[in-house]
């Protein structure tokens, strides 16, 4: 089967799932009477609608190819970084470092993927960015909260640009016997990580009893994590035929994706709360901001990339 066939077969499944979800959403909307229940259903319907848009964008990436995919993720990073730094208190002295993050580091990172310069892609922000940004900030002379301010900007840059860019960086992986199908591998990563989020949410809403980390994220439950995580791993295993992995390999890698994604959601929830916010923004109806959707991706993508590169790269 060609890459194209596999892609549309998987997308067919995703679209069928979305149709079912939309029908259930419409049916719940008819049935629900209580005010609290209505809010939950309205949020659910908004989430499903946002999923239609996100899946459409993913299809567009696949049809338009590599350059469009990079532009798409660069924009996602841009909006995520904008959300992160908006919630971060900054002072006039942070202006130049922030401008460098947006106008130099971000385009450079995606350009390095585009020209397949793996060596610099992997160290540009963690080495050169890490050292240069505080030095430039120091030139301004404002030492008030210097360490805190620089830490926050660096964290935002690492998370929203460096980590998120690992998702399209999957296109850099050259796996023997799997040439020219790396877009499918990226789709696989995104599918498992997002499905894991959705299934954890669904299992949590249906069976959630024991809260996992009530102070960090009140909606996360043990039942949601176990049920949703196992279900997502099962789906990831079932999709082994679009990957270069064996069924066992796909099971192990899906489990890694699910775990990393969960930890990302948890850690970023804590960051968000320490900045005094409930959602990162209001960009995606029902989901909150861009970072509310990308939190698990930002943790899962780098881990997935390096595990696969170590185990399968030629």
């Amino acid at each position: 089967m060609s890459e194209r066939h596999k892609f549309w077969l998987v997308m067919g499944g995703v679209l069928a799932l979305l149709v079912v979800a939309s029908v259930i959403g419409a049916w719940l909307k008819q049935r629900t009477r209580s005010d609290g229940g209505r809010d939950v259903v309205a949020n659910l319907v908004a989430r499903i609608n946002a999923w239609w848009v996100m899946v459409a964008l993913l299809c567009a990436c696949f049809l338009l190819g590599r350059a469009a995919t990079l532009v798409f993720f660069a924009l996602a990073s841009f909006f995520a970084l904008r959300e992160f730094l908006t919630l971060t208190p900054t002072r006039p002295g942070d202006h130049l470092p922030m401008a460098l993050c947006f106008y130099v580091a971000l385009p450079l990172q995606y350009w390095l993927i585009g020209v397949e310069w793996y060596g610099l892609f992997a160290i540009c922000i963690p080495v050169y960015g890490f050292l240069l940004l505080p030095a430039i900030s120091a030139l301004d002379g404002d030492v008030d909260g210097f360490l805190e301010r620089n830490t926050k900007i660096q964290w935002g840059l690492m998370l929203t640009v460096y980590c998120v860019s690992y998702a399209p960086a999957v296109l850099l992986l050259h796996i023997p016997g799997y040439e020219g199908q790396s877009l499918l591998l990226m789709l696989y990563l995104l599918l498992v990580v997002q499905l894991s989020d959705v299934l954890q949410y669904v299992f949590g809403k249906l069976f959630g009893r024991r809260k996992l980390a009530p102070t960090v994220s009140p909606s996360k439950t043990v039942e949601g994590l176990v049920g949703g995580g196992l279900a997502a791993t099962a789906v990831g295993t079932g999709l082994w035929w679009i990957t270069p992995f064996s069924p066992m390999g796909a099971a192990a890698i899906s489990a890694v994706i699910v775990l990393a994604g969960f930890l990302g959601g948890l850690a970023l929830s804590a960051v968000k709360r320490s900045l005094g916010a409930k959602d990162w923004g209001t960009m995606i109806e029902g989901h909150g901001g861009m970072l509310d959707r990308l939190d698990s991706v930002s943790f899962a993508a780098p881990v997935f990339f390096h595990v696969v590169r170590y185990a399968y790269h030629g």
Partner: protein
Amino acid sequence: MITSQLLVGITRLLVGAHGRWIHSRPAPTQRIYFANHTSHLDTLALWAALPPALRARTRPVAARDYWGGGGIRGFIAEHGFRAVYIERGRTQDNPLAPLEAALGSGDSLILFPEGTRTPAPLPQAFKAGLYHLARRHPQVEPVAVYLDTLHRSMPKGSLLPVPLTCSVRFGRAVPVQADEPKESFLERARAAVVELA
């Protein structure tokens, strides 16, 4: 027209600038939107936050010494948001004349009554221009607006805006009351901005 569309698009991309109508509704009434002034982005953000139909009839008041030159700034002010220029610092017969002409032809205005940028969350005391305009044009509704975050996007002295999301909050209308003294009106107007902070 295309310039205006493009300008709104770039403003949205950089600073969001989505309007939140807290104590007033978007309406085709003739208005003076007055706001706190912290950065050069304020004019664009407030103008872009208006719904398209209102935006087309609303002209920002802009200092001629900053927006009135040639180059890209002049082009933006002239063809993008159709600025009403005001002279700063020079003594004239009536510096408000161009603003009154715009009001006379039925347009709404965007005005920053502090007269200059204040790099702080709360505005300084307002200058008298707003009072004179509101009194001489009682059919025009003065509406308070608060802009946040923009002083962090583009602090004084910086040339390049950093993308941070700003919200544009529309507050209550503050009409001049009969025989109200200048100081009392200006203080009420400022308070209407401050309550949105």
